C-alpha cells in the first residue's frame, strides 16, 4: 500500500479514481471485475450516487477527524481514514467501521440517538409505580408505569445536581426522590417539590426529570426513541413485526411475562459483529466445531431427559453440511431487519415432536387460536430475528438478546427470556435451559463466538487489507415484491443489508 503509515492526500475514498488505482483493495486484486460492477450485481447496491454520499459526509471533517491509536498505543495507519471518507463501498466495508472511535461516536449520535431502541417489556412494570432501570443507547433511564397506566422513560439524572435518582434495578414507588437534596418527582418526571423552596425566587421555574420524547409499545415490547419525530414504532419494525407477533401468538393466554433475570455477556469487540454473526450461517461449522465434535463423542445427552436433549441437539445442529445450511432461508427487510430460518429441527419446542408436555401446550394453544391457526403459529420456523440496530429475537425459544455498544471495541449483550403465559410450566424450564446452553458466557457455543469477535477486533486493528469483502452469495439474492430480499443460507446477504442500512442512518 502506497501510503502505509503516513497521512497524505485524502484519496482513499471510493471515488472512481481510487477504485481504478485500487492497489489497496483486496477485491480488485483477486477479481478482474471492478467494484462498481459488484455494486450493480448486488441487490444491495448503494441507493444513491457515491459522490453524493461523499459530498454530504464531508460535513463531518471538522468534527471527526483525529488520529487513531491502537489500544496498545502503537499508532497504525488508520488516521488515513476519516469519517468523512465513505466506509461502505458497494459490498465492501472499510475496517474503520469496526475500529474507529470517531465512527463509533457518530453511530451513537446518528443511530442510537435516533432509532427506536428496545428498553424493556411491559410485564416488568405491570402496576402503577413499578419501575426498572434500563438503557437507551448510552443513557441510563428509568422505565416507569404511571398512575394513568401509561409508560414514561426518564433520564436517571436528578434535575438539580445530577445524581442518579434510582439505584435499585427495580422497585415500586409513588414518587421518585433524589437521595442528594431530596428533589422529588411524579411518575411522569414532573417536579413535585424541593426542600427550602423559599431559597428560590417565587417566579423561578425549576425543571423535572428529562423524559425520552417517544415511548411506544408493540405487543408488550417497549421501545423508545430520542428523536421526537420520525416513523412510528410499528412502521420502524416493518416486516419484522412478525417476530413479535409470532412470539405473542405462541402464548396460550395471549401475553408474555419476562422472567429469569438475564444473562450478560461481554466482549472486547465492536457491537455490529454480534448481529452479523447471529445470521452468519457459514461460521457454525468452523467456530463451533469443538462442541459439535464433543457431542458426537458423548451422545448420551441426546438420549437424556427432554431439557438436556434439547440443548444437546442444539450443539449437534451446528454440525450441518454447507449444503444443509444453504437450505436455511435468509430474509432481509427494508429497515435493516433480517431473519434466518430454523435449522434446529429436533427438540421439545419443535412442533414435529410428540411429547406429553408439548401436547398439553399445543392443546392450550388450539383452545386460543383453533387448530388451523395454532398449527400455523407453531410452524413459523425461524431462529434469529434481527431487529435493526441491536436486538435479536428467537420467538421459538422465547428468548431475546439486546446488544449494547459501550465503546468501539467493547460490547455487552443482555440475554432475556419470556414465559408463554398459559403454557405448562415445564415449557418455561425448557426456555431457561435452552438459553443457558445457547447464550451464556460459559455456553459451549457462545463462548467461541465471543472469542472470535475479540480476535476480529484485534486483527482489524492491523493495517493491510483495508476493505472487508461481503459479496459471498450476492448473485443469489432475490428481491421480493414487498421490497424484501431473500437468499440462501450461506449468503452474506445479512451483512450487506445491515451495512446498507447502517450507511443510510450514518450518512444519508
Amino acid at each position, binding site marked *: 500500500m502506497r501510503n502505509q503509515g503516513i497521512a497524505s492526500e485524502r484519496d482513499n475514498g471510493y471515488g472512481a479514481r481510487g477504485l481504478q488505482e485500487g492497489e489497496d483493495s483486496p477485491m480488485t486484486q483477486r477479481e478482474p471485475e471492478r467494484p462498481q460492477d459488484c455494486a450493480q450485481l448486488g441487490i444491495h447496491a448503494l441507493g444513491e450516487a457515491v459522490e453524493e454520499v461523499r459530498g454530504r459526509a464531508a460535513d463531518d471533517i471538522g468534527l471527526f477527524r483525529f488520529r487513531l491509536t491502537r489500544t496498545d498505543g502503537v499508532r497504525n495507519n488508520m488516521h488515513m481514514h476519516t469519517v468523512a471518507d465513505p466506509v461502505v463501498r458497494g459490498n465492501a466495508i472499510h475496517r474503520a467501521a469496526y475500529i474507529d472511535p470517531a465512527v463509533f461516536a457518530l453511530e451513537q449520535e446518528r443511530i442510537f440517538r435516533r432509532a427506536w431502541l428496545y428498553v424493556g417489556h411491559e410485564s416488568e412494570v405491570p402496576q402503577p409505580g413499578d419501575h426498572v432501570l434500563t438503557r437507551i443507547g448510552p443513557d441510563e433511564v428509568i422505565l416507569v408505569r404511571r398512575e394513568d397506566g401509561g409508560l414514561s422513560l426518564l433520564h436517571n439524572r436528578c434535575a438539580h445536581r445530577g445524581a442518579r435518582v434510582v439505584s435499585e434495578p427495580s422497585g415500586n414507588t409513588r414518587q421518585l426522590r433524589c437521595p442528594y437534596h431530596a428533589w422529588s418527582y411524579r411518575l411522569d418526571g414532573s417536579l413535585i417539590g424541593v426542600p427550602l423552596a423559599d431559597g428560590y425566587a417565587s417566579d423561578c421555574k425549576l425543571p423535572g426529570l428529562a423524559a425520552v420524547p417517544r415511548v411506544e409499545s408493540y405487543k408488550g415490547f417497549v421501545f423508545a426513541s430520542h428523536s421526537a419525530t420520525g416513523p412510528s414504532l410499528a412502521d420502524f419494525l416493518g416486516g419484522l413485526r412478525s417476530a413479535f407477533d409470532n412470539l405473542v401468538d405462541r402464548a396460550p393466554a395471549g401475553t408474555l411475562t419476562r*422472567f*429469569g*433475570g*438475564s*444473562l*450478560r*455477556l*461481554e*466482549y*472486547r469487540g465492536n457491537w455490529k459483529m454480534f448481529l452479523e454473526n447471529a445470521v452468519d450461517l457459514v461460521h457454525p461449522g468452523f*467456530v463451533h*466445531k*469443538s*462442541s459439535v*465434535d*464433543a*457431542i458426537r*463423542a*458423548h451422545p*448420551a*445427552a441426546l438420549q*437424556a431427559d427432554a431439557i*438436556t436433549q434439547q*440443548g*444437546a441437539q442444539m*450443539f449437534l445442529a451446528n454440525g450441518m453440511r454447507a449444503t444443509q445450511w444453504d437450505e436455511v432461508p435468509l430474509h432481509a427487510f427494508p429497515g435493516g431487519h433480517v431473519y434466518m430460518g430454523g435449522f434446529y429441527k429436533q427438540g421439545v419446542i419443535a412442533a414435529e415432536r410428540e411429547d406429553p408436555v408439548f401436547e398439553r401446550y399445543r392443546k392450550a394453544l388450539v383452545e386460543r387460536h383453533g387448530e388451523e391457526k395454532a398449527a400455523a403459529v407453531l410452524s413459523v420456523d425461524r431462529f434469529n430475528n434481527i431487529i435493526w440496530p441491536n436486538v435479536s429475537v428467537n420467538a421459538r425459544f422465547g428468548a431475546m438478546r439486546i446488544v449494547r455498544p459501550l465503546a468501539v471495541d467493547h460490547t*455487552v*449483550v443482555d*440475554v432475556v*427470556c419470556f414465559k408463554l403465559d398459559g403454557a405448562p*410450566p415445564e415449557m*418455561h*424450564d425448557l426456555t*431457561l*435451559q435452552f*438459553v*443457558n*446452553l445457547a447464550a*451464556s*458466557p*460459559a455456553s*459451549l457455543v*457462545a*463462548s*467461541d463466538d*465471543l*472469542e*472470535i469477535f*475479540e*480476535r476480529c477486533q484485534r486483527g482489524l486493528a492491523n493495517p493491510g487489507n483495508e476493505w472487508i469483502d461481503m459479496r459471498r452469495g450476492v448473485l443469489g439474492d432475490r428481491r421480493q415484491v414487498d421490497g424484501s430480499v431473500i437468499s440462501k443460507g450461506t449468503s452474506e446477504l445479512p451483512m450487506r443489508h445491515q451495512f446498507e442500512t447502517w450507511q443510510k442512518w450514518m450518512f444519508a
Partner: protein
Amino acid sequence: MTEVEAFLLREARLLDEQRYEDWLGLFSDDAIYWIPTRANQVTVQEALSIIYEPRNLLAVRVERLSRREMHVQSPPSRTVHHVSAIEVDGDEARSALIVAEWRGGESRFFAGRVTHKLRKEANGLRIVLKRVDLIDGEAPHRAIAVPL
C-alpha cells in the same frame, strides 16, 4: 486435614493442571454442576444460569476442553483455583473460592462461595452437586471456558 478438605483441594488442583477428565471423574453419575446468576437463588427454575449441567452435559464440556478447535482455549488459560474457609456439615461442604485466570496477556478474577454435596461411593468421595455462587453472577462476563 480431613478427607473432605483434601478432596476439595485436589479438585481445585486438577482444574489448574487442566486434568479435566480426572476432574469429571470426581462427579457422580447423577451429578449437577451449577453456576447460578442470582444470589440466594433456590431453584434452577427461578432464573437463568451461567452453567446448569447434569453429568452427561458436563461430559460434553470436558470433551470439548480436549479439542484443539476450542478457540476460546487456544491458547489455553492458566488458572489458580484458591479454595479456603472450608466448613463441613454432614454431606455438605461449604468453601470460599477465588479463581485467578491469565490468558492472552490479560488477567481476571472470579470470586464466590461454593457448596459441594458429596457422597461416599465405592471408589471414594464423589460430587453430587457443585454449586458456585459468584459475587457477580448477574454482571456481564467475557467468555468463561475453564470450569470454576
